[in-house]
């Protein structure tokens, strides 16, 4: 176990779930990694799957630049009628859970806890616009 690996800020695309693409974020994310996240989201949405899940369960921190990127992607998903869900994991870090809660964004994205719930919800195209 290397500190630097534990702390590594990674954004990986997981395409092993068929029609649903996962974007898996680990470590701390902010204005420094936001451009890479926007690229990845663009990529995932562009491959026009049934749905996209942003998996934050391995993430330890996110700021408002990340929320901005996630909300922009949500808008695009709605436009393209692609499912879009944020997955928080069962044991989220305060640096991730708190900002989602106090901004009231949990029902907006929506944010779910488990991977299973996320996969189910991502296969339903968004209702609202």
């Amino acid at each position, binding site marked *: 176990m290397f500190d630097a690996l534990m702390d590594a800020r990674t954004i990986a695309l997981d395409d092993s779930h068929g029609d649903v693409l996962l974007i898996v974020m680990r470590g701390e994310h902010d*204005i420094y990694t936001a451009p890479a996240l926007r690229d990845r989201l663009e990529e995932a949405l562009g491959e026009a799957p049934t749905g996209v899940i942003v998996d934050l369960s391995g993430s330890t921190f996110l700021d408002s630049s990340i929320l901005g990127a996630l909300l922009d992607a949500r808008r695009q998903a709605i436009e393209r009628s692609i499912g879009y869900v944020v997955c928080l994991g069962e044991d989220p*870090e305060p640096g991730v859970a708190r900002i989602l809660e106090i901004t009231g964004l949990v029902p907006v994205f929506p944010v779910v806890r488990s991977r299973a719930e996320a996969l189910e919800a991502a296969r339903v195209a968004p209702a609202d616009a």
Partner: protein
Amino acid sequence: MSDEAPIVHLDLPARPEGVGVVRQALVGVADGLAIDGGILSDAKMAVTEACTNAVVHAYEDDLGRLDVEMYADQEQFTVVVRDRGVGIAPRPARSSSTALGLGLPLIAALSDSFEVRGGPGQGTEVRMSFSYEREADPADENPITGGPGPTGRWES
């Protein structure tokens, strides 16, 4: 730690990669002060938003500096984030901007007290304090209202 001199003074370029440096330094300070995990988490977020504003809004080029001081007294620790940029001023929303508009609301919601100073040509100073023990959740006192608008900016 001392009440008078800053525990730490950081001076670094106002660039995206600097924000994480400030956050890590804050973790180091918090370690020395044995600060509660939830309060540290809030402080990391508020300080990140203040630094991000300096990185995104203060300077035209990427040569500007970001200046951060951390202080501690018996009841609270204080982080001061300063830039020498254009200052907070009414300005047309840049269409290219990806800023959500949640920075200052988050600072208000996550700190026990804060102060923003400055103006055109004076740069900007954001001073945030965090009590070691909270009587109430500041996010209840300064709640974030509204939600994302159709343009991408937050609307309250």
